[in-house]
């Protein structure tokens, strides 16, 4: 449709400038983290006195930031949540898409309605509930609340609807029961969609800030996001090189996930718009 060469050139130039704008903050983040504190405000993009001391200082014993602990908490809770969500949502989506029971429609519409509830509306009661259960400041608090989101059920529901009936018929001929049908046919066929759900859940939990901020209180239970935020407004508030090094640590898991599972992630996001 683009006929003129000059139009192609303009598009390319605009996109390249856009890309530079998008990557600029990241580049400065890296550059600042490699500078000594004295050079932080020198305005040079290329560090004049290249140093890795910010990184070693954060990892050193007695550092104000417990990076290892926070990173461990975040990764553990994000992976546990993802596994739970993939399992629970896959079973529920199979039941809703392929099986029949009394009240299925009601369940379906209740779940649709629940997608409209903003998190802020349940923040306080959820906090009080976890306080009553004595689960505040535990891994339970960092995992369980995320399992109730109905998004994944719909993602997989859509996928299961598209699987041809003939496969089910063939399995019944072979004498498979419902559970075997899920286990041997629906689960394997939905691996890409389920992996996408797992990926999005991992990112969501790892990056969440609001809930872990209120649900944890001891330094050893903090997640990476909350830890970084507390350093930002606390001990590192004026030491930008140190803060930038800490920020880079906090980005590592999602960066790795993005590099290796970019396609699944983008696919998941793309379907978000089409599903709703």
């Amino acid at each position, binding site marked *: 449709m683009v006929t003129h060469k000059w139009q192609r050139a303009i598009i390319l130039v605009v996109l390249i400038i856009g890309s530079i704008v998008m990557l600029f903050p990241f580049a400065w983040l890296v550059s600042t983290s490699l500078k000594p504190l004295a050079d932080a405000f020198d305005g040079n993009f290329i560090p004049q006195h290249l140093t890795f001391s910010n990184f070693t200082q954060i990892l050193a014993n007695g550092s104000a930031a417990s990076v290892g602990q926070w990173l461990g908490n975040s990764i553990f809770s994000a992976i546990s949540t993802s596994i739970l969500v993939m399992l629970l949502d896959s079973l529920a989506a199979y039941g809703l898409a392929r099986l029949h029971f009394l009240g299925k429609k009601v*369940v379906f519409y209740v779940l649709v309605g629940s997608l409209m509830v903003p998190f802020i509306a349940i923040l306080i009661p959820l906090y009080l509930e976890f306080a009553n259960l004595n689960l505040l400041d535990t891994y339970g608090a960092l995992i369980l609340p995320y399992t109730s989101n109905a998004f994944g059920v719909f993602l997989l529901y859509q996928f299961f609807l598209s699987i041809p009936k003939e496969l089910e018929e063939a399995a019944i001929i072979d004498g498979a029961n419902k559970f075997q049908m899920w286990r041997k046919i629906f689960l394997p066929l939905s691996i890409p969609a389920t992996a996408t759900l797992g990926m999005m859940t991992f990112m969501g939990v790892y990056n969440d800030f609001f809930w872990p901020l209120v649900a944890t209180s001891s330094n050893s239970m903090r997640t990476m996001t909350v830890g970084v935020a507390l350093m930002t407004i606390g001990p590192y508030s004026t030491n930008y090189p140190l803060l930038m090094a800490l920020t880079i640590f906090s980005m590592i898991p*999602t960066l790795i*996930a993005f590099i290796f599972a970019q396609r699944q992630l983008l696919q998941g996001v793309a379907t978000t718009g089409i599903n709703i």
Partner: protein
Amino acid sequence: MSSISPAIAKKRVRKIGGSPLNQLGSFLFVLPYLIVFALFLAYPIIFGISVSLQHWNPMIGSGGFVGLGQYLGLFNMQSLTAQIFWTSFMNTAIFVVISVPFLVGVPLILAYLIYNAPVKGFFRAIFFFPSILSATSVMAVWAWLLQTQGGPINQIFGLHIPWLVRQPWAWVSIDLVTVWWSMGFNLIIIYAGITQISDTTISAAAIDGAGFLRTFRSIVVPQLRNVLSVVFIMSTIASFNLFAQPFLLTGGGPGQSTTSLSQEIYNQGFGLNHMGSASAMAFMMGLILAAVSFVQYFMVREGRS
């Protein structure tokens, strides 16, 4: 294994319901999810409504039933709570109004440009990249970049703009950061929408002599109506839930001018321990948000038919 004829198998698949025992078996697949749904979503909603009808302090629990008092209090403009609520509501509304057009418009244009460019996958990845970052890392970086004294942006461009500490710059900064951070999400959705427009439609337009801009205006935008309305409604909801950007960038200032509704609810509940009135605020916000999405949904549907 028992063997069943294909005809019977077909019948079994088609048959709706089945015996009560069979239905119970089917229900068991949904049950585990329903348990966590009940415990961590349905129960908090009901419990929250109950808390919002009481004076509630986390130390002592209920301090007495007040009925709809705390909701009505939000409309009594003499009370401090009402003033705080509506001030932060207006702040949030301002943010929604200035951010949503950019969150839909900028990705729409970029998605169309990428669709017509080489190395599409590369550009999509770059523009999406900030969306994978956490609020705290994004705000930590931008709080540094936007420092008035010695911040890289002011240094590079030789400016002296008080980005985070004076209005209207505080809103400009929050908006800029939000668009940079979350626009990629919408871009991917819109791009997927463009690829679903049939090639025949686009090439037919080209044969009719429609150029780059004409195709965008007359083919792409109208065909994207559904996708754009989903993106529009989702972005409104997301912007309404504004929390981390002012909380970590401006601290809600200067003054209270960027304190969002979510931040105010957080302050009421966890700063002042007024959990009852904070719950009332939260449900009021939920109701307003539901009403706004409802109106938007019907506006969009009306426009479609």
